[in-house]
């Protein structure tokens, strides 16, 4: 009995330790006892198309790199989730197109279709990841995601010209001593004037981000930063060199200047009604990062602010920000979120007392 209890206690400690250690060091922390309800806009009748041709993260992928939780939540709110077929025009029922962390560039003909779709009042969510992970012979290779969504080519030429948004080709980092750079951050630097940030109370967890350029001057569009890094961050353009040499410094003229760097931004074109949200981090909605849960595959979101932010983003993009809402109460993340089975020790049968003499008699009998 005592041994069983000891084992259970050790198991619990191991799980707790695993959850805590799995959070990037020095950054995100586990949300504790967040049992406050989350309210999201209903998305009934909303059709959301996810692109997949440029090796994006997909809504049907349940791996840590997938978006299945994000998409599942959208679906639970009433949205219809579909994959986009680029071979034809973007369907007329598309309320939103999501491009999530592509690793190959969006082709020009796809950009042209997107452009026409946006000019017809469409909505677009782009999540641009700065880092590309690949595996070769069992070795994980980290490189800059330089083949997708280049700052001065393709789709970003259009979003910059028409919506004042594009992402730089850098990684938002800060020095943590000994030449080490930290690219994961928790940030509470939020533009709470924007409808997307309404109700987002906690800090957002960002897992490697590209800094954004946002043209917030007076234009036919209204572009606004949504989320900033802390003032100590800069945009490292040679991050892969840092990974190889393990030391890197801010290089004036090459790296993005230090300061509150936009990490997410929204733009709305007043003439067409089109809306775009650009997020410099693809991981913000991935199962294994921004939508991480503990225990895994549960609704105990480790970063509930990320969930709120993403849901608000979708609601704003599809114009559902004033629609009917639904409230979820997510379980507190961590081992306690899952009902721990109460282990009841199986009673050991007590030996029936037997009279020794009698026994002996039987033996002898």
């Amino acid at each position, binding site marked *: 009995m005592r041994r069983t209890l000891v084992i259970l206690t050790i198991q619990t400690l191991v799980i707790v330790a695993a959850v805590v250690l799995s959070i990037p060091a020095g950054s995100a922390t586990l949300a504790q006892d967040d049992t406050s309800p989350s309210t999201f806009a209903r998305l009934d009748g909303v059709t959301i198309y996810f692109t997949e041709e440029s090796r994006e993260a997909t809504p049907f992928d349940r791996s840590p790199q997938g978006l299945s939780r994000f998409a599942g939540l959208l679906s639970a709110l009433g949205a219809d989730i579909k994959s986009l077929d680029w*071979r*034809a*025009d973007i369907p007329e029922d598309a309320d939103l197109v999501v491009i999530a962390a592509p690793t190959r560039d969006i*082709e*020009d*003909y*796809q*950009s*042209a*279709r997107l*452009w*026409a779709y946006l*000019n*017809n009042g469409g909505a677009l969510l782009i999540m641009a990841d700065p880092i590309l992970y690949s595996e070769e012979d069992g070795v994980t290779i980290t490189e800059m995601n330089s083949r997708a969504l280049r700052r001065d*080519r*393709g*789709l970003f*030429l*259009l979003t910059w*010209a*028409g919506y004042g948004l594009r992402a730089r080709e850098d990684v938002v980092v800060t020095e943590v001593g000994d030449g080490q750079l930290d690219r994961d951050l928790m940030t509470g630097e939020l533009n709470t004037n924007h409808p997307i940030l309404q109700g987002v109370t906690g800090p957002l967890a960002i897992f490697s981000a590209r800094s954004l350029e946002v043209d917030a001057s007076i234009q036919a569009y209204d572009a606004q930063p949504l989320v900033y890094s802390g003032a100590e961050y800069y945009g490292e353009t040679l991050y892969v060199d840092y990974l190889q040499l393990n030391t890197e410094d801010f290089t004036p003229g090459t790296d993005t200047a230090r300061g509150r760097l936009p990490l997410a931004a929204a733009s709305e074109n007043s003439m067409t009604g089109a809306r775009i949200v650009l997020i410099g981090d693809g991981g913000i909605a991935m199962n294994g990062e921004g939508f991480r849960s503990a225990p895994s595959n549960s609704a105990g979101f480790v970063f509930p602010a990320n969930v709120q932010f993403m849901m608000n983003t979708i609601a704003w993009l599809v114009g559902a920000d004033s629609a009917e809402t639904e409230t979820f109460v997510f379980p507190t993340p961590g081992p306690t979120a899952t009902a721990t089975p109460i282990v009841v020790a199986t009673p050991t049968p007590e030996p029936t007392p037997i009279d020794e003499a009698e026994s002996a008699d039987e033996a002898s009998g």
Partner: protein
Amino acid sequence: MKRVVSTLRRKVPALALASLAVAALFAFGLVGLPARTGHAQEDDALHVIFIQGRRPLETTGISNVGPEGLSKLADIFRSMGAEVSYQNITTRLSDDTDVVVLARPMRTMGTIESAYLWDYLERGGNLLLALDPEGIYLRSPSVRGANIRSRIGRSALPELFDADYGIRLYDTFVAEPYVSNASVETINTMYSIAHADAVSNPITAPLQQYNLPVWVWGARHMRVEPFVIGGQAHPLFYSDRGFGETSPDIFPSGITAADAATVPVELNLGEDFTGRLNVGAIGTDLRTGARLAILGDSEIIQNGFGLVSSGATPRYPANRIFVERLAAWLLELPEEEWPNLPAGFSWVMLDGDASDWPGRGPLSATDPAGDSAQPAYDLQVMRGYADNRYVYLLLQSAEAPEEDVQVSIPLPAEGSNAPAARVVASRAGIVVEREGTTSELVRDAAMGIGSGIELRLPQRLFNVETIRVAPCVGSGPGQEPLDCFDQALTVPNTPMLAPFDWALIDQPLATVYTNGGVYIRTAPGTNASIAGTVYNGTTFAVLGRNADASWVEVQNGNFRGWMAAFLLTPNHDLTLLPDVSAPGN
């Protein structure tokens, strides 16, 4: 009282129905009006925008009144009631634009330009694109000597046009036979002929009816799919004699020897394209109503090339007809408002029907009735006239001729010792028969059988000042004539012009490039007798050359003879032609 109420009850629905019917009729009447699906529906004026500007694309435009300019195309649009203006492609194309024209981009068609055009099409706009082959070197001052580097093939447009319109652009140069690097050094030596496709469409219908090819000056090709989901595509013109060269390095990069081409013009199987190569196409997006026209050659619509004219008379009437009808189609004008065929040309459809014959000009001759036992071969009336290239004859018999009818026309003797010759025309073709020699096919002659017999014969066959003809008709090859005209008709010359010189079809070509007139001779060398005088701009089919290619044998509707090569601007490499001057050739 009850009856009144009941009558009213019956009448109210009847009145309502009547009102509805009137409203429906009114609505139907409105719907029945020709509605334009383009952008400017709320504005009566038609708006045409030409994309021009040095950056980003460096297209040719309407501000250029020189040979490369599009000012004549702008005038065509204006003649149809459109307001014409230009802008650069740096902003979104306006909703009130009916047609956008983008011709000969010299620089890269990038993401933004492609997206702007596509967005415009997706809003139901109509677009004319004229795109030259990649790499052509233009010497003109307006581009300061530069190669075309539009990179269309790598842009978004081929993928989009293919998916939604069924038109796939390729980065090729349609190389006609006998073309070499030397003959693609300048745009002036890249001229050739493209045939109107047999797939019917309203734009090229007259070109099909009159068998009129169009002139092109170096073209790229495109694939046109007949079946497209949500779209429609029609091929306009094609070439099927050459191949689609895929290397842009066949062109020079400048005018010095160091700038010479690095790749020979040659067919590389597996890389280059063969077969019927479309050099123009139109498409419609059935969802948006957008109309797209793509020409694989911008010279077709340029002032000094396809639209060149002498006063009101176009030098290339087929090009003119095509461009005018294309403009009307893009403006979505009703067909009855489309321009007429240009005046002054022989618009005779060779279908055996007299209805399209000129009213007063052609003279006629008669033949007694009943001098043939078979009414279908009983010649009665002949009409005829000549334009600047051809003789046109219309023969009418007592009844409509049979399909196997054969017409023979004796030709004037070419000399005192020359063998007797005659033209023999039948469904199988038109040949010249000379006693003691094999028959020679006359490629540019044509025949039509309907209620009568129509013939088009090149004037060179007659080779006399005054052409007299006395045709006979028979029932087939080897048969004695069943009837002949007793008296010859003197064919009157008229000031009309042939809309095309059909002798040039499917041949390497050469154009006279000289001041004043030059001689065409009966044999190579200046000692040979003079067959005629020709003038600057006259184009010939080249049949062959002499040993050192200093003289070439040429032919058009008027003449066949030899000319000194230095007087000609050929569209091919003369040295690649067969030597036809040697005995036995």
